[in-house]
């Protein structure tokens, strides 16, 4: 005979936490996950290069911050990734899966490169910068708006739509690279205006990348305020939680979707402007270089809080630069950085589960029942 007492309890029981756990505990769980990920990464690095992992991490640190120049390059790349993540945040908060940041960056880049090539000599620095800024916003914004329009009107699957827009943007870039190639036959655009530096970000305080930092940090603050305190930011949040609620509250859902996707694409367009005018001074099909995908995870892990994004971009860019340094020191290729970033993402994403849910093992339960 089987009765309730002999019934086998499940090995683990999982329940949602009624009360959220304190912040320090949540941070502790995340820190543990990160530590575990770094240990796994260290083991992998050790298996490949057979060196003391601690020394490898020191080498990574030198690679990212070792010299003044390296540090600024790291900061520049951080700003770029942060800018894309800022752009993606409103779209993802609205549960609009904008995987098309790559394409939107490229469009912004094409617009900037167009100005640098065709308008050099007609405009002085300030109007030129402003024009490039506006055009890259418009180009990226339209690229983001198109899938938003179809989503709003017919509910077209935006995940694949934005993804396909990436490849169309890549081919468009390839077309312009062929059009602008310099020298002819090289299949690259080369550094644009290398001598005149027209359309390049001007140096501020003696730093070539100071303007990037100012621009992106301003944007960070604006986005924080926009998402948290503005009416539009509130609409984004409501549409993301439940479109029915939004409709019930008399929000114009299609309008919110189209507006938000435009903003999202526009900021990614600015990232393209940063990449072309503020960093590489050239354009190629790899100008976005996969950062549009990494930025999604940055925005997601930060729960769309722009200031948390700064920390996460810092970590990811540090890993990236560090891994490239290791790769060049030990003669490996630098794809190793993506592998390490992936492992860290798995751990950090998985750790969120232990923040939201309570896990009870079989043994511990007995006591609770008796008590």
């Amino acid at each position, binding site marked *: 005979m089987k009765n309730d007492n002999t019934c086998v309890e499940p090995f683990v029981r*999982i*329940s*949602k936490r009624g009360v959220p756990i304190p912040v320090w505990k949540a941070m502790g769980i995340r820190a543990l996950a990160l530590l575990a990920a770094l240990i796994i990464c260290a083991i992998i690095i050790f298996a*490949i290069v057979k060196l003391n992992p601690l020394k490898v991490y020191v080498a990574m640190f030198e690679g990212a911050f070792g010299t003044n120049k390296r540090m600024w390059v790291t900061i520049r790349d951080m700003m770029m990734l942060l800018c894309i993540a800022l752009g993606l945040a409103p779209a993802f908060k609205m549960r609009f*899966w904008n*995987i098309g940041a790559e394409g939107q960056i490229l469009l912004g880049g094409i617009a900037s490169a167009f100005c640098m090539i065709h308008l050099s000599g007609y405009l002085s620095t300030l109007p030129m910068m402003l024009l490039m800024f506006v055009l890259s916003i418009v180009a990226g914004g339209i690229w983001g708006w198109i899938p938003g329009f*179809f989503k709003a009107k*017919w*509910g*077209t*699957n935006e*995940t*694949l*739509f934005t*993804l*396909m*827009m990436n*490849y*169309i943007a890549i*081919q*468009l870039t*390839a*077309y312009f690279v*062929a*059009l602008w190639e310099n020298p002819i036959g090289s299949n690259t655009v080369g550094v644009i205006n290398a001598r005149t530096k027209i359309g390049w970000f001007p140096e501020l305080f003696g730093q070539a990348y100071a303007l990037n930092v100012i621009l992106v940090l301003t944007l960070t603050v604006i986005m924080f305020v926009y998402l948290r305190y503005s009416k539009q930011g509130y609409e984004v949040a409501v549409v993301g939680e439940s479109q029915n609620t939004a409709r019930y509250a008399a929000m114009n859902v299609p309008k919110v979707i189209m507006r938000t996707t435009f903003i999202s694409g526009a900021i990614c367009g600015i990232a393209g402007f940063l990449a072309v005018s503020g960093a590489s001074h050239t354009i190629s099909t790899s100008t976005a270089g*996969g950062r549009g*995908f*990494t930025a*999604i*995870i940055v925005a*997601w892990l930060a729960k769309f809080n722009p200031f948390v994004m700064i920390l996460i971009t810092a970590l990811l860019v540090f890993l990236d630069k560090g891994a490239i340094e290791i790769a060049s020191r030990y*003669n*490996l*290729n630098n*794809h*190793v*950085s*993506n*592998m*390490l*970033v*992936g*492992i860290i*993402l*798995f751990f950090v*994403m*998985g750790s*969120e*589960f232990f923040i*939201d*849910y309570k896990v009870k093992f079989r043994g511990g339960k007995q006591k609770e029942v008796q008590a």
Partner: protein
Amino acid sequence: MTQLIALLQAGIMFGTVILYGSTGETLAEKSGNLNLGVPGIMYLGGIVGLMGVFFYEMNNPEPNKLVCILIAMASAFLAATLGGLIFSVLTITLRTNQIVTGLALTIFAGGFANFFGGSLNRLAGGVGQISVATTSSAFRASLPFAQDLPPVLGMLLGFGFMVYLAVAVALFVDWFINRTSIGLNLRAVGENPGTADAAGIKVILYKYLATCIGAGISGLGGLFYVMDYTKGTWDSDGGIERLGWLAVALVIFSGWKPKKGIWGAYLFGMLFWLFFYIPDLTRRSMELFKMLPYLVTIIVLVVVSMRRRRENEPPAGLGIPYFREER
């Protein structure tokens, strides 16, 4: 005419890669798991299959072709299944967001594959790029009776065996989903896991198995790409990733029906290679022509969403994590 057949051939080669990918992904999506890690999983299948035979060929001066094929397929399938397992643990057990997890898997596997693809040979003490000529030739060997057929038919039946295996797998999965009781259970899990759970179907088990086996099938697409399409070498320009995304698109294009995916895949392939067979294109217009498969995908997406036919809808529970206590 010869041009047309050549285009068809190129289309079939290309289509086979994404057919594996989309068949596996359809299986996973039928269980309600939207696995955007398909490009990553194809990467894993491709590189680990390549690594498996690389070590076998390195240690055996005269490799047996059958063993080569077996090693390659087993290691590719296994590695891809492991990729699917990572995804399953994260999304099913730890309830992470499926889209973000899929992207993370693609980033990880892309890094893994391109890292080993680019430096495996050097790590093993060799020079130059990795290459497995014997295995690749075994994969590309045409069916034995193909030579005796008339030219046109012979060309269409002259592919390596994996081209036909892809069709067989697609037909089998189609039959399995629609004509078996386990398939019916699987569809129930994808449509409404709560109801399926109440009916006594082991939802979690179904989700795990469908996602992992689906990933294994997708991984074979990566293997075919490496062994057949690029002839046993590794190209690190992200070719697999592109095709992986097209495979995800093909799932929607086919309306979650692998049978329809077969001709869809070949159509995609022909659209992809069309630029090559149109005479007198400059390089610039060639780049514009290469947009075609992506443009067509978008048009299909829009048309499908406008028509809203019942049989073309995704599984109702797609992308939503299942938690018994949250009903």
